[in-house]
């Protein structure tokens, strides 16, 4: 169980941006877009064998040619003042087909990621994910932020379209970040790194959708680019957003007019308040969204 580094470049005060898949792949889509945009080079990987069940077998003429595992890769990019390391995990090392990792495997993987951060002299770690919110898909998703220190919270406030978790209605007493995108933040704090998590808002009624939500990924990437002081071309994300918007609109049309009317009220207020949708309506939405999405489910071959 360990790290394989393909090279060991000297990096200048690098930050690390790390992410695993989560709701609507908001974080991974943002970070992977960043990776592609800046032309980051491969740096290394975490060995997959001890963490994952294989994801694909390739058999040719009756002979097993290859078995592929989910990758957990590091990339790097040099900039003028501050370099960057990116980590993207293709899956969370979760047992039993779950999406989110927990327990010893999750801890081991987070620890390995931070070992690389420490080895290259990183001081700050960014993670990213989704914030399920009582918002509407026609509104620009805000970015919820959580950090490991008060002074970082002050820094967060300096970025547009960003809101600290405590400023969201209903989260005054705190919240939680499930899986490795949260655990890494906690472990980073424990090991003395500055840690910031940026979560793109997704409407509650889309949180179980089997497609990405690039609008939120764009919001996250805008904030991240602002923190890192780099320029990003959002053309690809905008194009994807337009395609997904069509799917969402089609789905939205299938909601009852009563529910649609209630959800549409969210558009008229900058910050949706919990009372704009009743618990009963919320339950209705969840149940009906599941019914719609079940159509696209596929089986899991897992063990023979």
């Amino acid at each position, binding site marked *: 169980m360990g790290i394989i580094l393909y090279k060991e470049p000297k990096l200048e005060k690098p930050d690390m941006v790390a992410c695993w898949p989560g709701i609507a792949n908001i974080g991974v889509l943002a970070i992977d877009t960043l990776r592609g945009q800046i032309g980051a080079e491969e740096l290394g990987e975490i060995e997959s064998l001890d963490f994952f069940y294989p994801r694909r077998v390739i058999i040719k003429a*009756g002979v097993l040619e290859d078995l592929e595992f989910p990758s957990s890769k590091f990339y790097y990019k040099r900039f003028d003042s501050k370099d960057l390391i990116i980590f993207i995990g293709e899956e969370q090392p979760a047992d039993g087909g779950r999406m989110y990792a927990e327990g010893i495997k999750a801890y081991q993987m987070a620890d390995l990621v931070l070992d690389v951060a420490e080895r290259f002299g990183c001081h700050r770690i960014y993670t990213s994910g989704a914030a399920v919110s009582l918002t509407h898909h026609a509104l620009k998703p805000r970015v919820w932020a959580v950090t490991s220190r008060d002074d970082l919270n002050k820094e967060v406030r300096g970025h547009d379209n960003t809101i600290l978790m405590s400023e969201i209605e209903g989260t005054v007493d705190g919240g939680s970040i499930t899986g490795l995108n949260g655990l890494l933040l906690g472990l980073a704090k424990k090991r003395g790194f500055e840690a910031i998590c940026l979560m793109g808002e997704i409407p509650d009624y889309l949180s179980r959708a089997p497609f990405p939500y690039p609008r939120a990924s764009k919001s996250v990437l805008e904030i991240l680019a602002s923190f890192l002081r780099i320029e990003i071309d959002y053309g690809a994300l905008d194009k994807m957003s337009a395609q997904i918007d069509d799917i969402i609109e089609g789905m939205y049309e299938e909601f009852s007019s009563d529910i649609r009317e209630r959800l549409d009220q969210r558009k008229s207020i900058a910050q949706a308040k919990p009372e704009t949708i009743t618990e009963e309506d919320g339950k209705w939405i969840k149940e009906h969204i599941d019914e719609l999405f079940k159509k696209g489910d596929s089986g899991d071959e897992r*063990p023979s």
Partner: protein
Amino acid sequence: MNGPLKFHWQPELQRSSLVVGWGVDATKLGAKVINYLNRKLGGQSFCEIEPVEFFPLGGITIEDDLVQFPESKFYSYPGKNLVVFSGPPPGYQWYKFLNLILDVAENYCHVQELHTIGGMISLWAHTAPRELMGIFNSPELKEALSHYRLATGLDYETPPGQRPTLNSFLLWAAKRRNIPGVNLWVPIPFYLVPVDDPKAQRRILEFLNQRFDLGIDFSDLDEEIEQQNQIIAEMRHSFPHIDESISMLESHLMPSEEESQRLVIETEKFFREKRY
């Protein structure tokens, strides 16, 4: 101490072969084939893998009124150069678990070759022959087994949303250790999955019997196949719509989804009534 390995005794084997069957494939074919081998050849368990690192153990399951608990056991057979592993697939730490199997096979039993057993659900009728398919981890073994009536030309990639089988994972792990191996797959008609398919068991056992010169007399299994054929014939006679569905399958036509589901449910029901 051997970690999760618990040895009861150590068999004396040289240049042996390992056969692996899991307990969860279609009709539990792997476990049934290994139970049959144990019964006919006097298999004795010499080692087991302790479950605690590999299974959830959050309680137990019950099947046919019997408590189920994950037992991962190795067997050897007096006078035969064969070692067999049987158990349920682990819930996690898959690679470590598979390597424990290969550790026992390689380090304690001097295994030279791996065979895994698997049943796959097919859309064929029960009257169709069970064509055995082999997937290899070495072209040399494929060549060496070419005279065994195996289908060996499969091209396959795991479709999106699905995962490879544990047999594929084991075959790959064996390849990393330079142990040649083959996954043996036998098709099982979908409507026999909730019941049993002794014909599929026989097809795998025939292969193993020939390959390892086991000298097994299959008359008991043949009798079981005959009994099953008679029950299905009776079912076809009693229920024209079932006969129609099976006739379609025999003509390589697929009944509708509804008819197929009905065939599965009514076959299970008919067999259950016959057995009690």
